[in-house]
């Protein structure tokens, strides 16, 4: 597993330079609450046909900064983006709340203070 740090402003450029649809399988968007209003965001890839090759791009952020969408690069990413909007209460460009949660659900269940 290889972890590569990125930032939200450079995310699209970094993933755009890295991602080739016929080489890399996009696994998931993930968030990990770090406490004190901080979150680690991850974009995870595996390599087709190669054993154990996982690449994770990660960016440290807070909960108020909007997260850029990678759907223009990876069309299937919209599901994962909607999931982190629900679970962490983040704002992701173009991603609506309500994939899992209802109006009366916890607002962002996987945030540390929830």
């Amino acid at each position, binding site marked *: 597993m290889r972890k590569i740090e990125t930032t939200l402003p450079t995310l699209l450029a970094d993933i755009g330079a890295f991602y080739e649809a016929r080489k890399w399988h996009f696994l*998931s968007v993930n968030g990990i609450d770090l406490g004190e209003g901080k979150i680690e965001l991850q974009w995870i890839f595996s390599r087709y046909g190669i054993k154990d090759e996982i690449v994770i791009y990660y960016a440290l952020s807070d909960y108020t900064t909007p997260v850029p969408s990678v759907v223009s690069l990876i069309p*299937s990413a919209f599901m994962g983006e909607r999931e982190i909007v629900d679970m962490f209460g983040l704002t992701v460009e173009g991603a609506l709340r309500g994939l899992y949660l209802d109006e009366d659900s916890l607002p962002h269940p996987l945030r540390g203070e929830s």
Partner: protein
Amino acid sequence: MKKTIQIPLGSQHISLLEPIRFKFECENEKIIGVDADVGFVHRGVELACTRSFEFKQVGYVVARVCGLCAITHSLSYTLAVEKLLGYVANDRIKYLRMLMVELDRIHSHMLCLAHTAENAGFEALFMQIMADRELVMDLQEAISGNRVQFDFIAIGGVNRDLTPELSALIHKNLELLSDKIDTLLGLFDNNWSLSLKYKGVGVLTLDQAYTYNALGPLARAAGLATDVRVETSDFPYEALGYTMVLESTGDIHARNFVRLREILNSIAMCRNIVDNLPSGEIQEKTKGKPSGEAVVRVEAPRGELFYLVRGNGQNMLERVRIKTPTFSAIPAMMEVFKGSEYADAPAILASFDPCMSCTAK
């Protein structure tokens, strides 16, 4: 601009086993747009894994994410925690885990095939496949103690061993099943109803498979050569006779055929596992508490199941991320629906073998 109408499919529908709602935008009978609502059975499993249960209990929690592929959930989680503990299972444990995962694949594929037959109006075949599937369900029950929700895998090993009587039963049932699958292969290929209904219907092209990150039988039916069993080194699949099953047409017929041929391959691997089971303990002691971050991929019946586990040396984990195969397959599913006839939508959906319990977790 032509007039369009919106037609829903689900959340409750005669063709659905589990709740999902598609909202189709149709021009006459043709689907031109689709939206999916997948969250009907969200249970907050990821939250429970980090707030309500200690790491030794979480394996039994994640086995409840899904009744069909419980074993792959508990295996993925267990492998991740074992990596964080620095533990590597002995070969006997690995073989026993592989045996249960492959039996699980067989029964899950058969359920999908039965449901696919039902969607073609072939009720008798549906019942025949479900009856044949009992051969595998009986094996799972005999080995693990349960037909479903089998808590067979634990951190540091497995909870039950194979006896000579069980090995003989596995051989007997799998031999019977193998003959039945051979018959099904002919039926799914040559039967007029199944061929007419499924050949050329619900096509996912190879380009779409790459673009929308298709996985599992859905990808392999489109010719995309990907299978976690050969993309990870956690288990010796190649040594036990694994062969990747690929089709190229990407239609419902191809997906059926990938599943049928994968069943035969899984049967062969299960026989090899039983015949070559290494000696060793089935439970080994592990020390410490999980610290750090581990990722695990396991090929579940519907494709890649992904777990990311992060611990900080305490009993409670910091994060358990579960990414299930159906969740990842939904973008590809939505593309396949576009351009299809609305009347084919239930059959196309069944051919994806969707598991909403996994997806909504």
